[in-house]
């Protein structure tokens, strides 16, 4: 089985978010970047579980500049067999999807996995776009997946419940919490990652239809209104009369 895992580079979850250039660009100064947790913890680890010990091959793909190689090597250290970086500055999900679909279209992957969303733009649309470009089925929010022949059995989260389904491969699947357990790369993995192939391919995507015009930070909250622990009637009154939420 051949699996392609799409990995994205995002600011660390504890990063302080600020903007530059008159609030038109994310301020990367002092920000630590990491592999998107959903891509790493769930999509990549499940792919490795399904292909390790000679059962198949996992390739990680990232669209980005050479500076992303550190994150790609981490993917190899976790257990991917090889890596591809499309040499382009990522500007939109559509562009990234097009680069991934262009790379994947003649490679015969049985599964393409992504995290359920990135923690920076939270778009959750990459998988659907790649699937459409390749004319494949797409299953989002998978929390459990087993593969038998050319069929994947998947459990997925829906609002207030769980859906159990089967999908014909090849398919695109986005992974959510529950799909796998996070793996910390060990020393052997890190050493082996240095010798695994990392191929760079040129950009090929076309024009874009969306652009971020500006960013803003949420208005600062006023100071908290502290209520005496013995006076919960007052809290209820404020929630009703002032906040008007009950």
């Amino acid at each position: 089985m051949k699996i392609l895992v799409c990995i994205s580079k995002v600011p660390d979850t504890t990063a302080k978010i600020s903007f530059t250039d008159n609030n038109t660009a994310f301020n990367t100064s002092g920000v630590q970047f990491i592999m998107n947790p959903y891509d790493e913890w769930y999509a990549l680890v499940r792919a490795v579980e399904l292909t390790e010990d000679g059962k198949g091959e996992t390739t990680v793909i990232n669209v980005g500049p050479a500076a992303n190689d550190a994150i790609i090597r981490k993917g190899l250290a976790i257990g991917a067999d090889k890596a591809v970086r499309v040499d382009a500055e990522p500007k939109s999900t559509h562009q990234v999807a097009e680069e991934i679909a262009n790379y994947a279209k003649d490679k015969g992957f049985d599964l393409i996995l992504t995290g359920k969303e990135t923690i920076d733009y939270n778009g959750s649309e990459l998988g659907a776009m790649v699937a459409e470009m390749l004319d494949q089925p797409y299953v989002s929010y998978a929390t459990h997946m087993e593969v038998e022949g050319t069929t994947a059995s998947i459990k997925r989260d829906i609002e207030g419940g769980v859906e159990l389904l089967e999908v014909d491969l090849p398919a695109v699947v986005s992974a959510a919490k529950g799909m796998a357990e996070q793996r910390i790369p060990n020393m052997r993995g890190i050493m082996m990652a240095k010798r695994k192939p990392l191929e760079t391919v040129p950009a090929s995507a076309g024009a874009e239809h969306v652009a971020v015009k500006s960013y803003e930070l949420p208005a600062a909250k006023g100071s908290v209104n502290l209520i005496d622990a013995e006076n919960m009637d007052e809290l209820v009154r404020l929630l009703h009369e002032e906040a008007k939420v009950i």
Partner: protein
Amino acid sequence: MAVLVFAETAKNSFKKTALEAVTYGAKAAASLGTECIALVIGDADNPAQLGAYGASKVLHVGGVAAFDSQVYATAVAEAAKQTGASLVVMSHSSTGKSILGRIGVKLDAGTVPGVNSLPSGSAGSMTFGKPVFSGKAFAQVEVSSPIAVVSVMGNTLPPENTGGDAPVEAVSYTLPAAKIRVKSVERVEGITPLPEAELVVSAGRGVKDPGNWGIIEQLADTLHATTACSRPVADAGWRPHHEHVGQTGVAIRPNLYIAIGISGAIQHLAGVNNSKTIVVINKDPEAPFFKAADYGVVGDLFDVVPKLTEAIQKYQAQH
């Protein structure tokens, strides 16, 4: 030119988020000087009721059973072409997110997932606001293609029922064969799912033991609120993973979020800080969550929470 809204159903009824999407579409249509047309896929009870939320017409595609993104996205894209839509709207739900990108590719249209404001501008240059960085910031995103496709974040606009029915027109499109076979759907009955909940009671490690969860549930039941938890509580297996709110869990924006025994780590705040009103109950006056709260109670949760439940019961008895 029109605004097309895909109104999602669950067990044949329209979800609250679907009614919100129709209200959003009707308001966007009014500002664009056009009409709002709703699209319903599969069995639905009384599609005409969408007229009450601002749809001038309802297109109904019958004969589609379980959800498959290829089938649904094709139906929405075909309806958009048929109606000449310049804006296509859906809920930012598990279904909406599974088809938004597909529809954008099919229509060669720009997509904006998770908008939380009405569009400004006009077709060919429409701008939408949306939360980014897991709620730590907002962005204005411009769509330059003739068609824009967006999903609307829950609780962006309340559904507005102004009464009246819309004419329903049965339509049929050439749809691809489903490659997904849904075996079963299990829903938790009687509880509003977290992303749609207006009132949320959430608790963290301060509760100390899963056996102590009763007081949290009593408060939630009294308020008819949905329960949630912080990441350590979900990771410890005290509560199911789908209740975990925060940056790596579910991002929510209810009207009221009551955080009990949660210190307020930045990753937790990211998933909840767009809530309209935040109440924090914590015995540590230095807990960072108090800085993000509207109302705070410094005290032992085992003492404060039952008193709050009692106060709410008293208030409910009087109103």
